[in-house]
């Protein structure tokens, strides 16, 4: 190749790149990892959108929101995907998000009705244990037993905050005394989910705070049926993960297109075996074998975003007081 054709080639290539619109999606880091949904989602969307989908990882959900608050209206992000309902209240209050028209036949227990955010997956928090252990039936039974559990810190971890809300939703004003009863069952409190789950797999505790879908990973990906979750009769707290569009986006139509794609089968099919969560819209093909069933609505606990925001500080203080004894 001589210099002229090389130059022309480079020019054409860059011109082609310049013509391709870029959609920037901020999400949590594990979404974009090689083992998360990111690579498949990017390939599927780029196959239809004629655009360049750039997914940027920013810690976990809470760090993601902090990032957006730091950047404010000058953010390059068009979409923020990966906040949960514990965060959406604070996210709405920033005024950085704009309303969306995304609609779908959501299979999220309790339904979904929010003009700023659309859900893409959801799950139940649960204690996971080995199948040779008889599950406690509820928090009370757990607290009365000698079972050892590892939990995550609500201040640094999403499941940790989920457990805080779970106990509050199940026990209300008695949450503080339940925590006090649970204190001697707690081996330790880790900063993140990975530490806790890793320590559990190494045998440091009988149960670990995770999701009802965690055993499905071991069954489907590893062919290992030795894990199950303890079904509590108080019900299980839900985590609903959502995406929203930033008001400052310069790719308005493309952002809408992405949100529509997000609730379509092409995206939802990817979720169960990469993010190990329930898809927000059960795809036509259904859930893979080995996946748990959704619980009845009465067993699916969740606070509305504004309730969650109002409860959090008080619940956290109860937790700290009970476990600092």
């Amino acid at each position, binding site marked *: 190749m001589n210099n002229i054709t090389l130059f022309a080639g480079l020019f054409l290539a860059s011109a082609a790149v310049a013509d391709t619109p870029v959609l920037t999606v901020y999400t949590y*880091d*594990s979404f*974009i*990892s*090689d*083992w*998360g949904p990111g690579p498949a989602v990017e390939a599927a969307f780029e196959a239809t959108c004629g655009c360049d989908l*750039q*997914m*940027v*990882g*920013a*810690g976990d959900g*809470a*760090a993601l*929101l*902090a*990032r957006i*608050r*730091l*950047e404010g209206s*000058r953010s*390059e992000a068009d979409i923020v995907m990966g906040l949960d309902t514990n965060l959406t209240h*604070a996210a709405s209050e920033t005024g950085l998000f704009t309303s969306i028209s995304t609609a779908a036949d959501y299979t999220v227990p309790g339904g979904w009705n929010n003009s700023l955010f659309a859900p893409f997956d959801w799950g139940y928090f649960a204690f996971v244990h080995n199948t040779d252990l008889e599950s406690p039936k509820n928090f009370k039974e757990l607290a009365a037993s000698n079972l*050892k559990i590892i939990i995550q*810190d*609500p*201040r*640094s971890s999403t499941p940790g*905050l989920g457990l805080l809300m779970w106990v509050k939703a199940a026990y209300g004003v008695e949450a503080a005394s339940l925590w006090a009863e649970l*204190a001697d069952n*707690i*081996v*330790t*409190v*880790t*900063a*993140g*989910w*990975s*530490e806790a*789950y*890793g*320590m559990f*797999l*190494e*045998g*440091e*505790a009988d149960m670990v705070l995770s999701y009802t879908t*965690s055993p499905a*990973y*071991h069954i489907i*990906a590893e062919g290992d049926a030795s894990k199950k979750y303890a079904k509590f009769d108080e019900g299980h707290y839900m985590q609903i993960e959502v995406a929203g569009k930033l008001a400052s986006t310069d790719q308005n139509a493309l952002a809408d297109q992405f949100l529509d794609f997000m609730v379509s089968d092409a995206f939802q099919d990817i979720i169960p075996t990469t993010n*190990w969560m329930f898809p927000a819209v059960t795809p036509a093909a259904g859930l893979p074998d080995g996946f748990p069933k959704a619980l009845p609505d009465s067993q699916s606990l969740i606070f509305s975003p504004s309730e969650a925001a109002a409860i*959090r500080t008080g619940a956290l*203080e109860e*937790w*700290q007081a009970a*476990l*600092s004894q």
Partner: protein
Amino acid sequence: MAGGVIAVIIRIIGGGAVLVALLAFSFSTVLAVALHGDGLGTLGSYDWQAVRFTIWQALASTGLSVGIAVPVARALARQDFKGRSLLITLLGAPFILPVIVGVLGLLAVFGRAGWISQGLDLFGLDRLSIYGPAGVILAHVFFNLPLATRFILQGWASIPPDRFRVADSLGAQPWTQFQLIEWPMLRAMLPGTFLLIFLLCLTSFAVALAIGGGPRGTTIELAIYQSFRLDFDLGKASSLALIQFVICGTVAALAILIPLPRNDGHGLGLIHTRQDVQSNRIIDFGFISITAAFLILPLASIVIRGAIHLPELPNAVFAAAWTSLWIALISTSLCIGMALSLALSFARTGQTTQKLVEVVGILGLATSPLVVGTGLFLMIFPFAHPMSLAVPVTAMVNAMMALPFALRVLFPAIRDTYVDYIRLRESLMMSSGTWLWKVILPRLSKPLGFAAGLAAALSMGDLGVIALFADPDLQTLPLMLYRLMGAYRMDQAAAVAVVLVAQSLALFWIFDRGGRRHATS
């Protein structure tokens, strides 16, 4: 002459620029965060509890690490055995382990399902439970005792062997020898070592929490984390960061009152001449074996756990290893460049000035990484795309974190070279370039190798990318490890940990050995 120009730039502009950069890096990032919030925030009672716990556990962990390191270093300095040099290299290992890997390694030995508990179980005894303050200290000792030992061993090796011979021939008994020769070295060596280890324990939070057994194990760094990501209270985050500064400043001020060690530039050779080698064999090997076991068992468990899964690793591990390697090399060059600039610029100033410089040098470590990252982000974001600066920012942050260690090693050596040779230089009218390339650097090859090894290993083990600047295509080994764990793939993560440990140790070994091989005296 190019060498001369470089030397002058390093000396005159470099030192000042590095100081300014350090101050900017630490204080202005806190300021930027505070300004973005509504000024400094006030602390609640739980925050003060976190402050108290942080100071208490850091003092206890550091005291124990340094206290045990003294007899261990003494034993290593005077006893010879097979594998001595390998053990000295392994001393670098726990320090560079990602926290989560180190914790899992420790738990494999000391945990409720660990080897010791299994042994106790066989005899019908209760399982070990290390969760709580004792466990936090145990973990910090695991991470930091080896480094403290290595620093203090450096001090022992810097004692001229003839001094022991003189004392021996004067009939000085071991305790008198200790007072005469070893205590003056320790008095000079311990404050700086204590300060560095203290800072490492001060800013640790995942260890304290994971083994601390609950919110009692809350450190200042975790409180900062909470203010930032849960409450988005930047004012409070800045206040907490400032408190961390104050604690560090207080300890640094205490350390400043004690003189810096004189380094005679000896290697880590044995002290062959000591008369008490035989009589202390049992106690020395007691210390060496216990430390080696404490160090090697968790490491072995990490290797055993991960090695069988190495074949399952995806090819991405090669790219991650490569990324980690070159980022570590850039960080190391930056770190050594900064340390040399500082040490050369201030080599001839008074001792007090030099100690001030060393204290400024530790600012990088005294600052909360989260606050630094956020501050840098706030300062850079208006002007440039943070993601496009992922590599320079990462390399710079790693270099700043490693700087205190490099300074601690290099400063005394450079000062002594000046004291010993400056007259010779003047009498020969040696140019700055010749002085730097032909005298300073060759004379310093051992401490330079050690410092570079530490810096390289440290940046290999670091998460690599501050989340705010993360470039999705830039995956380092520690990041890959965390991502695998986050995706339930604990086995593959364990295999990545093996790669990470092997690569970090190899890098440390190459620098450290390279320095010793090229040493001219």
